[in-house]
């Protein structure tokens, strides 16, 4: 792309006399390294020269008054008048102002200066530096308007990326492109942060060039590329760290537990369950679950290029064990990357990208009833991990709590992913200003999963038992009848059902052919840029799974279906499979006009057709418009401190197509299974009901922004946006009459309901010249977001989300006038202190006892109604109101210190990891419970008797605001001369800590909780992010 040179084309033409002179010289960078590929032009003349591999050049001028202009991307251009010099050596300095930097937008690039949209670029370096294995987690707090929340802190766990808020009750994932190839948001684990050159986030309507996939924003990731005509540059980086939990919960110890439980049983009219409550500390289940776990990474890369080609090759090994479960919840990844750019001829360039990933992940049961941490929190401190007979303690009294140590030991759940992502791209330069690009890209992934379920016994009545008894005898299952001649009867045949292994292979292939023309025209002050193209996309998936029983010796060593010793009749050894396919057909046009690069207008239109939508709405048009005014180019703005000022706005329509395939059709994919002749007989049933009008969700977004630069070094960006999403795709509860609520049945998916997101974003950046021995850099960003559901389908009051407790009522909702997934339950107002307070209250709270929570009568009918929703109210939202991120860095004669902070304020979390059951352990806040001697107004009395304290109320809702020091590090760069002795250019050692401090009032493990759109902020025993202390080294040579 040649736009970059445009800005340097300032036409002067002064010639005094003619005299050919040959000027030679050498160009070096800020580190006095030679710079190949630097452009040298004679001001006002055609042609020019570039520096060679050694940074040397030679150029002919005809006049001593000529000025030479040295330019290179990312560096400040320098102009030098020849005068009487014949040798001109130049040192170029990086442009501290990054206005000339190139940002990748859809099907093209743009200079930051000329952007009309709200687009942000994050350099790969600031991602890599954090040593966070997932690029999206590393992005947290770095870009305003982008909310990253964690779905699981376990190694390989996923995050949610939300650009400008939640806009749907369905899938809010943005479109992610890696070198132009569609990459699945959940599969981001596969990407090595060390391979990333830049991350470009398209937040507003200018993302509309991606049409029906752009509504949730677009993230364009570019991997590292080489430079033509440069020597090989090697980069090696490695770190090793130790992880530990940031927190352990304050649970009751044995003595406290016995005290509380006795009291509960006595209050409930029973007998105390402990004769002696002097049980001291007892066992700490958390100590037996959490462990220190290593994390390590080794990264190597080489970049360079010859005359007609450039290359960048990289490799990475990463491994991380879990702070819960160690190797049983680990993640390991191997990456290989090759980027090649070849100029096949003067007009033809071939770009090839290959990204290969091999990853392995093991997981434990997480974040729910039955998960390891849920079991740990609720296990009784009065019992040891092992009972006196040497077996694992059974924790008999609660049927759905099992021994978490035994659970980890019996868990074998591993997945393997092999993924190849790449493209072949031909660019034909038809004319200097007309290029034609054709590319075929692919994303091929094979995901293998294997789960081994050994025969296990957790105590009688436990849901997790797979064996018949503690001797691990297999369960006998019915397997047909056998005729018995002696008695003339049919006797049941019973067969053993031993340990089982389930295996799954899923194969996914995306193929995408894209073809587009880029045409630029510059006539005097008028500049036109245009793009016209088409895209054909196909995604196919194929999943096959099977289960084999009776694995020999109950051992992981034989955990493969091939080892199954099951007789293999109909009720064992199951297999299954399914396939899917989706297609997208698109055409797009973008035109941009600017006058003197002062006034810029841009328009985009895209037409998308998708196989996902009903025949009545298969194609959609998605237009967007944007404009910018670079005020600082105006002569009237002659105010020195303002070095750049741009006002911009955009408005456009985009879509979200992320719904299930064929959701518009009434498929016979329900479950219609019955038993005839004692044989399970598969029939058919309608699954999802039909809707031929089904289409995409439509987002209309307005953005108003300003970019300001002061004193050439302070960069300020602010945006205000209104983003309204209509035609939400969701399957609301429908009436029972439709008949959707049978096995495998789902209500039809309809387009109904609106969501509004409004927000304000602010970014500030300042950096001193990185070559100064003493320097500072600061980046601040701030986001305010207001999310509101503005309409839901007719006849529906709300969509229910997550449930509270075990089999409890719905606690989160999607409802008009509230944020998506807000919490809905009873509001409390203290504790009933004595009987007279209950008797004299003008509100009748059924069954209230002294020490119970007082609920607020929302509808004012004089009683608390527990049978309907009339007394429930808004208890807060899981979405933060404000987010704040900052990066601070200092460097001082080779030493550097930096810190990344992230804060999210205003969100609430539901404490849903407490099993409300008389024997389950509890957090030690219950020590402050109401008693006659301790008239608490916060924590109710505990009893085994029937009461309403366990209904979902604000008692279980906590403030989830937090400030987290995400990364803090100290590094030292060895002096240049010292490096030279070892033939290296750059050596940096550092020590760093991730998640060193978290400031929060939240009682649970980790306040940074993600979750689905309607189930956000519900903590079911969340696997927390680890605190990591690490040391590492980066070397370049």
């Amino acid at each position, binding site marked *: 792309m040649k736009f970059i040179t445009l800005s340097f084309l300032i036409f002067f033409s002064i010639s005094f006399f003619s005299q050919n002179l040959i000027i030679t010289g050498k160009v070096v960078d800020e580190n006095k390294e030679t710079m190949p590929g630097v452009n040298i032009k004679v001001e006002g003349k055609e042609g020019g020269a570039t520096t060679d591999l050694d940074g040397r050049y030679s150029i002919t001028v005809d006049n001593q008054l000529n000025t030479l202009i040295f330019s290179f991307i990312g560096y400040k251009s320098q102009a030098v008048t020849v005068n009487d010099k014949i040798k001109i050596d130049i040192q170029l300095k990086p442009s501290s102002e990054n206005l000339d930097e190139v940002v990748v937008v859809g099907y093209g690039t743009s200079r930051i200066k000329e952007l009309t949209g709200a687009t942000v670029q994050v350099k790969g370096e600031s991602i890599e530096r954090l040593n966070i294995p997932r690029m999206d987690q590393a992005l947290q707090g770095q870009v305003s308007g982008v909310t990253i929340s964690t779905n699981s802190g376990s190694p390989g766990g996923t995050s949610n990326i939300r650009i400008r808020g939640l806009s749907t009750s369905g899938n809010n994932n943005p479109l992610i492109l890696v070198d132009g190839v569609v990459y699945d948001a959940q599969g981001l684990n596969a990407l090595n942060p060390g391979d990333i050159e830049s991350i470009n986030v398209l937040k507003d309507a200018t993302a509309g060039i991606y049409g029906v996939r752009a509504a949730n924003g677009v993230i364009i990731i570019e991997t590292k590329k080489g430079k033509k005509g440069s020597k090989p540059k090697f980069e090696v980086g490695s770190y090793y760290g130790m992880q530990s939990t940031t927190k352990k919960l304050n649970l009751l110890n044995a003595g406290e537990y016995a005290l509380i439980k006795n009291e509960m049983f006595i209050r409930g009219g029973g007998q105390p369950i402990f004769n002696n409550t002097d049980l001291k500390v007892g066992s700490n289940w958390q100590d037996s679950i959490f462990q220190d776990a290593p994390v390590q990474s080794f990264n190597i890369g080489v970049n360079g290029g010859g005359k007609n080609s450039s290359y960048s090759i990289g490799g990475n090994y990463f491994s991380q064990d879990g702070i819960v479960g160690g190797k049983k919840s680990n993640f390991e990844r191997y990456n290989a990357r090759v980027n090649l750019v070849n100029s096949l001829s003067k007009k033809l360039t071939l770009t090839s990208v290959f990204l290969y990933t091999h990853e392995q992940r093991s997981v434990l049961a997480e974040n729910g009833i039955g998960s390891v941490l849920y079991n740990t929190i609720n296990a009784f401190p009065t019992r040891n991990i092992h009972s006196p007979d040497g077996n694992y303690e059974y924790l*008999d009294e609660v049927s759905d709590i099992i021994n978490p140590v035994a659970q980890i030991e019996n868990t074998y759940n591993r997945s393997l992913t092999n993924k190849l992502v790449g493209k072949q791209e031909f660019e*034909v330069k*038809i004319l200097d200003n007309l290029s034609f690009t054709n590319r075929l890209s692919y994303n091929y992934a094979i995901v293998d999963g294997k789960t081994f379920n050994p025969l296990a016994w957790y105590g*009688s*009545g436990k*849901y997790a038992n797979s064996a018949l008894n503690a001797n691990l005898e297999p*369960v006998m*299952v*019915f*397997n047909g009848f056998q005729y018995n001649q002696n008695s003339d009867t049919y006797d*049941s045949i019973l067969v053993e059902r031993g340990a089982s292994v389930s295996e799954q292979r899923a194969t996914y292939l995306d193929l995408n052919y894209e*073809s587009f023309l880029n045409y630029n025209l510059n006539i005097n002050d008028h500049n036109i840029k245009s793009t*016209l193209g*088409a895209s054909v996309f196909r995604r196919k998936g194929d999943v096959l799974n099977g289960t084999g029983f009776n694995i020999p010796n109950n051992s992981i060593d034989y955990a493969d279906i091939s080892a199954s010793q099951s007789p293999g009749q109909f*009720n064992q050894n199951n297999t299954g499979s399914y396939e899917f396919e989706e297609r997208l*057909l*698109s*055409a797009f046009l973008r035109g941009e006009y600017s006058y003197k690069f002062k006034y810029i207008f841009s328009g985009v239109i895209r037409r998308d*057709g*998708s196989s996902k939508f009903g*025949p009545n709405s*298969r194609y959609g048009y998605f237009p967007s418009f944007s404009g910018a005014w670079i005020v600082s180019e105006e002569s009237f703005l002659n105010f020195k401190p303002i070095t750049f000022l741009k006002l911009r706005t955009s408005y456009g329509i985009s879509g979200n197509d992320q719904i299930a395939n*064929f959701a518009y*059709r*009434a498929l016979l994919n*329900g*479950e219609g*299974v*019955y*038993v*005839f*002749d*004692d*044989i*399970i007989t598969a*029939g*058919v*049933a*309608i699954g999802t*009901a*039909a809707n031929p009008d089904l289409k995409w969700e439509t987002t209309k977004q307005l953005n108003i922004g300003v970019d300001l630069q002061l004193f050439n070094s302070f960069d300020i960006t602010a945006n205000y946006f209104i983003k309204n999403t209509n035609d939400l795709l969701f399957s609301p509860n*429908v*009436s*029972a*009459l*439709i*008949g959707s*609520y*049978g*096995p495998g049945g789902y209500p*039809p998916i*309809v387009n109904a309901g609106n969501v509004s997101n409004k927000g304000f974003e602010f970014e500030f950046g300042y950096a001193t010249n990185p070559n100064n021995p003493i320097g500072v850099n600061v980046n601040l960003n701030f986001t305010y977001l207001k999310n509101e559901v503005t309409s839901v389908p007719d*006849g*529906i009051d709300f969509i229910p989300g997550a449930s509270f407790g075990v*089999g409890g*009522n719905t606690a989160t909702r999607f409802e008009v006038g509230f944020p998506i997934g807000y919490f809905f339950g009873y509001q409390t107002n203290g504790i009933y202190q004595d009987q007279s307070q209950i008797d004299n209250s003008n509100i009748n709270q059924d069954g209230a006892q002294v020490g119970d929570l007082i609920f607020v009568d929302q509808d004012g009918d004089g009683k608390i109604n527990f*049978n309907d*929703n009339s007394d429930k109210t808004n208890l807060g939202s899981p979405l933060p109101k404000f987010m704040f991120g900052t990066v601070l860095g200092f460097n001082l004669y080779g030493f550097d210190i930096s810190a990344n902070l992230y804060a999210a304020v205003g969100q609430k979390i539901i404490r849903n990891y407490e099993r*409300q059951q*008389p024997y389950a352990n509890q957090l030690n806040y219950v020590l402050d419970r109401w008693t006659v001697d301790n008239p608490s107004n916060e924590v109710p009395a505990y009893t085994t008797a029937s009461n309403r304290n366990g209904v979902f109320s604000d008692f279980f809702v906590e403030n989830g605001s937090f400030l987290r020091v995400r990364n803090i590090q100290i590094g030292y760069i060895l002096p240049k001369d010292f490096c030279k002795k070892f033939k290296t250019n750059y050596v940096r050692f550092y020590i760093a800590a991730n998640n060193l401090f978290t400031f929060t009032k939240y009682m649970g493990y980790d306040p940074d909780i993600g979750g689905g759109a309607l189930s956000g902020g519900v903590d079911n025993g969340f696997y927390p992010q680890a605190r990591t202390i690490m040391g590492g080294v980066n070397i370049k040579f």
Partner: protein
Amino acid sequence: MKKIFFVFIAFTFSLVIITSCKKFLELDPPYTQDAENYFQNEQEYFRALTGAYDLLQGMFVSYWIGDIASDNTIAGGESVTDTEGLHQIDNMTHGAVNNELRSLMRWNYCGISRCNFILEPKENEVNFASKATVLAEAKFLRAFYYFELVKVFGDMPLIINKRIGNDEVLSSRRNPASEVYDQIEKDLNEAIVVLSYKSESSHSGIKGRVDKGAAQALLGKVHLYQNEWSNADFVFRDLINNGNYSLASDYTTMFSKSNENNSETVFDVEYSDGEGGGYNCLICLEGNLTPGYQGIRAYEGAVYGDGNSYNLPTQDLFSSFEYQDPRRDVTCLNLDNFISSNSAGSTYSIGGGGHTGFYNNKYIKSKAEMSGLGDNDLTSGVNYRVIRYADVLLMAAETNNRLGYDTLALEYLNTVRSRVGLPLKTLESNEKLYEDILKERRSELSCEGHRFFDLVRTGKAADVIPGFVVGKHELFPIPQDEIDLAGGNWSQNPGY
């Protein structure tokens, strides 16, 4: 320039071709049949019928309500919030927010919609020999599902022979119970004409497929619930005279897996232990969850398995049996007595949801039948006996008594009594016989899901159920969510 021109043309051409190629987007789901191109042959009809049968397996909700709402059992379980809806029903404090009632409504309407899918008019009707039977069974099932709804909720919207969308839901109304009953009777009468008795060779002989006897028994029961005694008598008489059913000799093995499909079986819901399952989708189970749910909490000992202590018989039920009635111990397991005499040293725990000392011995997890795949609390293969011939005889006895044919009524009553060796009743008065028949129903059929509905239809509920309000608790409230989802136009049942 020529080359450039060529590229341009080729590009524009391909663009037009690609983006206008509609066929490219007309994709059929791989290997998946569609609702609109179904019903091409006998096999497909039968598979759809299987899907319609599937919802019978959700009957455990009304089964539980039948005893828990009555004086027979308490809800039990781990705590009072464990399946809270049943506890509310137990205490007669239930309101319009009740997950169990909602499931009952959803599942039965799902069953109805699956029957309607089979019965709705087709563009190209295919014909085959057994088609009439398939349609008759679908009508039986639709009648059964509507009867479940009408006996629990009263007036309910009737949807017949069509699939409906949300627009039709919003314009729906609650048809009077009498109209629902008329439809049920119509479906059953049409089914009876086509179906044959299990004992006849014309029946397929497949265990689990309903026969004429099931349809007649259900029709008689439907008449009974409306006090249509003559109509009931007509049906029961035909069934008793021609159905070739008889009482099984041994009451104690009546509810075992091995004794399924005996001479007394009129209509069972079929279950299998051959498929695993979880709590997240109870209607997806192929196993019977009631034996596990009703199993002894944290029990370790002989004979029985461990379970969730649901649906526990009361002392009142236990004491209601006559002297030496063997049905008492088949119905109520006196746990401490059992342990001390049969299984010394066994242990169990007491659930927070209540404890009576008795367990429901008809459907209870036993070691002998604990073979279901995991979670075996949910996957018992034991069938639920919906209508037994003893029930038919007692309904016929009641019918005849109400019509004044007391001799025949007494004969039916004594047939049931003599099977368990109880002394025969003699005729004292019509009313005394009526009371004897109703008492016999309790002794014979307790813990089988009938009691509450019997008490309601005989007007005796308020006498024995604490908190029962006449004029309110005969029906359960329509789930508030369902009223809202239907546009808020339905009236709630009185008193709620």
